[in-house]
């Protein structure tokens, strides 16, 4: 499995797409650093860009890459290896390659242009987002046989997590404004990994002071060891569930 993962990772890393993606990320980061003169603002800008870019790019790339690899996966399946190893080789190679490109592009920009104070949080969030959306993409790609339908679904899902879900939150808060709902803000965001990463980061950079009562309640939650444990467990579940569904689909799939 390690050998296959190694070769597949190399294959992805050498693609033009990865080069373009890496350069693009780096240029965006550097651009944000040089446009404004304030480091914290630039870092917030970078993080916001990543929150949009990573889910969409990871989903579209992963889904289309899986469809492209159908023939090769089939060839691997005729070799004396268990199916689950083939699944994990392709999943891990995809994740490794994406992470390597993303983290080195962002990391380089942050090391060159900032004091590196938010490097770790940004890396952690990028890693979570990549793993989560790669797992979801695997699930989509192995569940839907048609390429166009699969890519369409992933784009839709991306838009859902990016905007539609937040829109629903907005409407919910508006209709429930008579009730003391401050407590449930964090609960709502548990159901959207992008929101969860965003809020985690907001509390890292300490914008939370702007957030009034809602912020105070959330800070208390996130600050407590129980709260942060719950959040990280939920993030892990966001990887685990789609991944296990994807594995199930792959093990039963007709090639």
């Amino acid at each position, binding site marked *: 499995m390690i*050998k*296959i993962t190694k*070769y*597949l990772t*190399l*294959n*992805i*890393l*050498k*693609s033009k797409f990865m080069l373009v993606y890496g350069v693009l990320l780096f240029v965006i980061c550097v651009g944000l650093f040089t446009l404004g003169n304030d480091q914290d603002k630039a870092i917030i800008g970078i993080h916001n860009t990543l929150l949009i870019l990573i889910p969409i790019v990871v989903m579209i790339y992963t889904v289309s890459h899986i469809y*492209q*690899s*159908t*023939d*090769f996966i*089939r*060839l691997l*399946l*005729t*070799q*004396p*290896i*268990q*199916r689950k190893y083939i699944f994990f080789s392709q999943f891990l190679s995809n994740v490794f390659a994406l992470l390597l490109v993303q983290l080195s592009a962002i990391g380089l920009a942050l090391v060159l242009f900032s004091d590196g104070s938010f490097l770790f949080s940004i890396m952690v969030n990028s890693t979570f987002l990549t793993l989560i959306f790669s797992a979801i993409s695997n699930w989509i790609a192995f569940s839907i046989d048609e390429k166009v339908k699969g890519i369409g679904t992933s784009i839709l899902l991306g838009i859902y997590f990016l905007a539609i879900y937040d829109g629903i939150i907005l409407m919910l808060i508006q209709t429930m404004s008579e009730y003391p709902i401050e407590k449930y803000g964090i609960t709502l965001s548990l159901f959207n990994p992008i929101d969860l990463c965003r809020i985690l980061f907001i509390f890292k950079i300490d914008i939370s002071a702007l957030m009034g009562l809602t912020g105070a309640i959330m800070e208390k939650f996130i600050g407590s060891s129980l709260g942060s444990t719950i959040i990280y467990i939920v993030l892990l579940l966001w990887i685990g569930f789609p991944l296990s569904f994807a594995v199930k689909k792959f093990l*039963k799939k*007709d*090639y």
Partner: protein
Amino acid sequence: MISVQNLHKKYGKHSVLQGINVELKKGMIAGLIGQNGTGKTTLIKCILGLTEFQTGDILIEGKSIQAGPEYRNKIGYMAQMGRYPENMKLAQLFEMMKEIRDVKNLDEQLFEQFALKKIEHQNLGQLSGGTIQKVSAALAFMFNPEILILDEPTAGLDPVASEILKDKITQERENKTILITSHILNDLDEIASHVLFLQEGKVLFFETINDLKEKNGQQKLGKTIAEIMLEKEIKS
């Protein structure tokens, strides 16, 4: 040796294979033919473990293929590849496959005859359809498997390469079990010893080519098959 026993396979409600019983023995080169959608591909996929089947069993050298993936060590499969990983070098592909199969006694005859060494450092994404076909053939034979399953092996190959491959197949015949699908009946006529004819998910016949020709009094396999199909149609 491949032994297919009462094999049934359904896709949803659609029944594709309905009780296939076939014994392929060492020394046979069986040509698998039939019209489109009669289950040729499905049968191959069942044998390779690419798809699950409902009832029946497939034994390879006496062992059920449901016991685990190890039986695939005995199989060389030449697939109809659309594409290999684009940025993998040809050498890397062989390296990877060698690591997976872990076989000492390699058969690199096709690799050399197809002159793949020269293009070792090219990315697989840059290769033409014919070259990809050569790569697939070389891979199938490389690990000296007891069983060869060749899916449209000569499709896309130039005449010279096609002859090299056919020679190789006949040369390997003695101690191997070989299953070939092909639309080019002339090729099968040259190399196959048996014909396995599938119709609507069932084995219509499984005979040696010579018997078949004798029965129908034809010199060519293509004409023989055409005649049989015509008869069928008239009957129904």
